[in-house]
Structures are given as structure tokens and as C-alpha cells.
């Protein structure tokens, strides 16, 4: 665990407290049961904004606290532990795009609204089922954006989209020329394909050529933070279970095969934590972001994949039931693994960044 400042520790404790008390997994079950396409509890999100969590990376001048990504990651991790459904990650990433590429006017217009929770925003980048920022066809002419985006996270709750076009990123508000097709994925959260048909678009002129890549790296590290919380929660639940489940007159935890399995997963989780924390810190420092973000998300993919599978396996039959929570983590895990780069994409990217 990274060394935290006093503020960070307070923030983390507050998030942990809130997530355990106000947003345990049973709250996610309610969201699922409600079956709304938006797939989050608006009151809960309002409370999160009230506590300042959406504004963590936003400068004070624009209504945020300017604590940075490491701090945002602490909150996101805690929310990941209880599978809290909210557009916090999506909005934070969208805010980072505006921070990196927006004009003063765009920042002044949008950042306070994002920080206050009034506006939910999200990225609309990929046009197919895989992360592929090099294959963008969406185009803009005369301020009108046209194209099709696939599997956009939190699309239903969002009223502002950060959309990738051939020549850069644009802000598009939900309204004329924007239509959604719901895509229901295993995680039962909000996803949609979006058709932009001549929708009014405003370019993010700043940020240079690397803007899209920089934004994706921020998406990677923040998603990785959510995944870290999920991995930790499944690991902890599984460890507890092994310490109490009795078979062959002894607790399962006394079997060496399982001790070693858990030791391996613990080592993996330790590696994942280091990688994720370093990714978040790299964004804050601005040094080596691409490489650190790639490592963070690749490790998050690898380790959460393993832990979510073992979480089911080591619980035996109970792990297979809908009544038990581990399956929810598995189903969300694969969606996040596919987001902003699958493990094969990230390995390839790492090799390229390293020059081989």
C-alpha cells in the first residue's frame, strides 16, 4: 500500500466507510433488480458528488479539490470492493479529457457541473467490440459530428460525451442527432452503442497529438483501480471462506494445496497493487504515463482474471450460485478486462512502447 498523506487517509477511510455502510453489494442487487438502463442509484451518485468524489481530479477553481488521480483511485478502489454501480469513473475520465484538451471556456462551463454531479459524462471512443483507437471513422464537418460508437460505458446516465473523431476529441451533448441502442452485458451495468448523426460538436483543441492516448491511459489506470478493489474483495472473501469451511474434519485453509494457491494469489495481488498505484502516481506526476498505465491495466487484467476464477472455484458449489456475490465480480471483471485494452492488446502495446 502506497504511503498516504493525511488527507488521502481520511478520504480512503471515508470512502471505505460509505461503501460498506451505504453501498454494500446488496445495493448493486437492487440496481440490477430495478432493471433501469441507467443502472445506478441517482441518489447514491448525488451523495458521492456531495462528498466531493467526482471533483477529486478537478482544480479548486472549477469546483473540485485537485487531489489528483492517486486520491481518486483510493475512492474508486473502495467502491470497486462493493461493486458500487455509478458513473464516477466515467465522469472522472471525461473530466480529465476536458482538463487536458479543453479551452478555458470549456473548462469553466463543464468542470463545475461534473464536479457537482449535475452532469454525468463519459468517453465514446471505440467503434467496434475491441479497444482500437487507431480505427476511428467518426468525422466532423461544419461542427457536426457523424459516426457510430460501440459499447459506451454509462451512456444512459450521461448527458455529455467525449467523442473521438479522426481529427481529435469532441464534446457532444446528448440531444439531437444522438441515439442510443442499449447493449446489455454480463455486468448488468449501463452500456450502449451510440449513433451520432450530425450532432453538434465542439472540439477539444488543446492537449496536442497525444490527447486521445493520454485520455485512454487515464481510463486505464482508473479502471485498474476499480479492478484492484474487486480483486481485493474476492480475495478477502475467499480467504475468509477457506478459514471457516470444514471438509474432511478440518478447515479447508489447512490444506497445503489451497495454502499455496492463496499464497500465489496473494503475491499476484501484491504485484497488481504496486502496478496500479504506480499507474495512478504516474498520471499525477506526468512522467512515463503510457508505460505505467499499460503495466497497471495489464496487471489488473491478469490478476483479476485469475482471482475471479479462483474465487468461484474455491467456494465450490456455493460460488456458482446467483445468491452468492462472487459471480457478480466475475461478470464485471471480464467487462473491465475488455475495456481500454484486453491483455493481448496491452502486451502488444507494452512491447511497442519498449521498442521491440
Amino acid at each position: 500500500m502506497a504511503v498516504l498523506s493525511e488527507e488521502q487517509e481520511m478520504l480512503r477511510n471515508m470512502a471505505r466507510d460509505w461503501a460498506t455502510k451505504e453501498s454494500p453489494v446488496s445495493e448493486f442487487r437492487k440496481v440490477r433488480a430495478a432493471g433501469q438502463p441507467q443502472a445506478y442509484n441517482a441518489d447514491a451518485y448525488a451523495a458521492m458528488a456531495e462528498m466531493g468524489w467526482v471533483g477529486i481530479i478537478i482544480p479548486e477553481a472549477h469546483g473540485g479539490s485537485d487531489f489528483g488521480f492517486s486520491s481518486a483511485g483510493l475512492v474508486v478502489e473502495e467502491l470497486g470492493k462493493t461493486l458500487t454501480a455509478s458513473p464516477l469513473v466515467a465522469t472522472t475520465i471525461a473530466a480529465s479529457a476536458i482538463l487536458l484538451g479543453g479551452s478555458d471556456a470549456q473548462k469553466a462551463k463543464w468542470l463545475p457541473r461534473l464536479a457537482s454531479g449535475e452532469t454525468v459524462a463519459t468517453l465514446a471512443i471505440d467503434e467496434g467490440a475491441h479497444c482500437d483507437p487507431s480505427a476511428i471513422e467518426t468525422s466532423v464537418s461544419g461542427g457536426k459530428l457523424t459516426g457510430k460508437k460501440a459499447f459506451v460505458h454509462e451512456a444512459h446516465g450521461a448527458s455529455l460525451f467525449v467523442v473521438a473523431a479522426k481529427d481529435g476529441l469532441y464534446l457532444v451533448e446528448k440531444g439531437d442527432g444522438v441515439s442510443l441502442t442499449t447493449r446489455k452485458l454480463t455486468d448488468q451495468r449501463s452500456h450502449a452503442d451510440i449513433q451520432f448523426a450530425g450532432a453538434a460538436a465542439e472540439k477539444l483543441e488543446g492537449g496536442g497529438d497525444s490527447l486521445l492516448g493520454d485520455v485512454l491511459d487515464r481510463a486505464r489506470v482508473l479502471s485498474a483501480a476499480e479492478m484492484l478493489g474487486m480483486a481485493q474483495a474476492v480475495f478477502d472473501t475467499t480467504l475468509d471462506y477457506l478459514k471457516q469451511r470444514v471438509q474432511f474434519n478440518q478447515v479447508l485453509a489447512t490444506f497445503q494445496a489451497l495454502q499455496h494457491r492463496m499464497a500465489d494469489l496473494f503475491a499476484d495481488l501484491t504485484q497488481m497493487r504496486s502496478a496500479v498505484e504506480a499507474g495512478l502516481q504516474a498520471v499525477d506526476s506526468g512522467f512515463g504515463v503510457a508505460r505505467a498505465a499499460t503495466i497497471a491495466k495489464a496487471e489488473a487484467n491478469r490478476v483479476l482474471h485469475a482471482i475471479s476464477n479462483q474465487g468461484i472455484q474455491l467456494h465450490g458449489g456455493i460460488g456458482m450460485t446467483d445468491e452468492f456475490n462472487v459471480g457478480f465480480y466475475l461478470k464485471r471483471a471480464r467487462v473491465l478486462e475488455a475495456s481500454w485494452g484486453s491483455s493481448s492488446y496491452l502486451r502488444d502495446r507494452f512491447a511497442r512502447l519498449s521498442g521491440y
Partner: protein
Amino acid sequence: MPTQVESDVQTSEDAFRTEVRQFLATNFPDELKGTGNMMAGLDGPTDENPVQKKWREAVGGRGWGTPTWPKEYGGGGLTKGQARIIEHEFAKVGAYNPIGGMGVMMFGPTLLEYGDERQKLEHIPPICRGEIRWCQGYSEPNAGSDLANLQTFAVDKGDHYLINGQKTWTSGGQWADKCFAIVRTDRSDKHKGISFMLIDMDAPGVEVRPITMISGTSPFCETFFTDVKVPKENLVGKEGQGWTIGKRLLQHERTNISGGGRLAGMMGQSLGDIAKKYCETGGDGALVNKVLRDKIADLEIRWNSFLLTARRAVEESKAQGGVSEISSVLKKVGTKLAQDRSELLIEIRGFQGLGWEGDEFGDDELEDVRGWLFGKAATIYGGSTEVQNNIIAKRVLGMLDHQ
């Protein structure tokens, strides 16, 4: 030059092949081509339509769904060679075997070995005709991997037993007509106190509660027994012999889970071909994403050696008789490969391979997602992977706890 015996076998096999083809031409309706056997699935029965019923009766009537089982109990009375001919010829025209389920896979072979004459005559023919659905009453809340810890108790009441207790994870319990169960008849000995009994699922005092699985379906149940009367003639073998019989059944279960045929069916299309539909290829037809390509090749190589191992196991068990000792290896490897394949399929398809429902997903895509989730159970049931590892280490390799 073939010997006289070999050429006789050849001629009789050719004749049999012709007979099977004729049977298919007369009885197998085109509209069932490529559809599946409803009894074999764990996801529960859809109502059988008249065409399916007719097909089941045609195959069941000849005992060809259970080709190697003895004729006197309704089986086909055929050799393994003839059974393979049936399998091949059916597959060639896209015909499924309509006789299946736990009765065929595990209970039948066990009863043939341990049942008395009256029991075999009563229970085997309806299995061969696909008329009776069996479920497996083994696991209990505190008896999973440690199955012998089961506590469901049968009290001797003279002409019948009175059963009380709870089973769990009973696959298909809500649809089954009968249950083969292991229950306790003696508390003084963990293994020797177990007996193997047959229970009517509609007997008074049997209650099932379906459990929803992570894949969204409810293919298994909690099963409660409250003062359920079981006639004495439903005891298989002797009192106290249940652990031996029950374990024998588990060997059949394991072999079936990993049987090359079943998993080969699951593997279906080559992953490489699927990947070419979802991912970019270069001019030479090779996948552009080299990492993914490498993963697919790795899986398919391992899959091939699994098929070879499965074939070798069949040949060896034919030579030696009985269930091969490789069955634990096959169970552990085959189920893991099937899981790895499902995972890779998701990576190949991206978000399109993670659909829960909706018209924008193909039926195959949605089925594969549910299959991916359901498939997580394959390394848990039928003796978990960890239990198979223990069997391999201790029984096959002789790595005992105290040496």
C-alpha cells in the same frame, strides 16, 4: 492380407453399417437435423414434440441409444465396434442420440454392475427407452468434496426405510422422476455406514427448491427429504456397500464429463476460424494481433493432445477392461481446457462476446456467454480439480500423507 477372422469382422461391420444407414433413412426426420438431445442437457427439458418423441422411440426401441448394454435389459447388445458405427453414421447425417441423461451416463452402468436381476429389469429398460429421468442425490451442505460425511439418514422400518435429511446441488432435481442417492444407514462408520438407494421424486416428503446459478438458469436444486418411505427393494447392493457403489458411479461420471466426444462437441468450430471473423487479419490470412494468435495456437495444441489422450484412454481401457486410471487426468485437463476456451472466445469477441441479452447479439454469442459461466462448474462437480489432483498424487503417484 487380412486374416479370415478380420475379414469376417469386416463383412459383418459393413452389413451393420448398411443397417444403420437404412434405419436413419427410414426414421430420422430432416427437421431434427443438427438439433440436440434434450435429456442430455442440464438446463432442463423443453416439452418433447411429437417428431422428437417418434425419433426417441425409434432409437430407444432398438436399444441403440445404449448400444453396448445387454439386450435383455433393453440395450442394443452390440459390440463397441458397432456402437462406434452408430455414432459415426448418426453424426454424418446430423442425428443426435435421443437417449441420455444421468440414467445413461452414470446410473445405468452402475446398476448393471451392482443391481439385482429384478432391479435391472425394472430400471434399465426405461432408461434405454429414454422414459425416465434420474437425478443424483449425493452432495449435502456439509458433504461436498468430503462426500462420505453425508448425514441424510435412512432408518430401517422392516419392509421399508424412512429417510430424513437434505441433499443439495441436485442437478435436474425439479424435473427428475427418480433419484439415485447415497444415504447413511449407520453412524458408527463413516464409509461403511453408507447405502445406495433409489428414491421416487414424487414420493410424499420429497421437496425440491431450485437454485439460480450465475449463468441465470436454475438447473439444480436443494432437495429435502422428510419421512420419505423407500421400499427395501430399492436398496442397491447390501446395506453398507453404498460407498463402493457410489464411488464406482463417480468414475462413470468423470469419464463422461471428460469423454472426448462430449468435449469435442463443445469445442466445435476452430477458435482460429472464429477469430478471423472478429479480428483483423493481414494479407496472408494470419491474425494481426500476434499475442492473441499465440494464445489460440497454444490452446488448440493443448486441445489436440487432450483428444489424443482421451483416445488413448479409451483404447487402454478396452485392452484392460474397466475405467482407465487416466480418468482423473482427463477430467481435470478437459474441464480446464473447456474453460480456457470460453475465456479466449470472450477475448476474441471483445464486448460482443460478453452479451447478457439483446437482439444485437447472435444466439451463438449469447449461448457461449452462458456456457462460459455454467462451465465454471465443471471443475467443481464430478470431483473438483483439487480432488482429482489428490487422487492423482495419492493413488496414481503414491505420494501419501505419511511416508
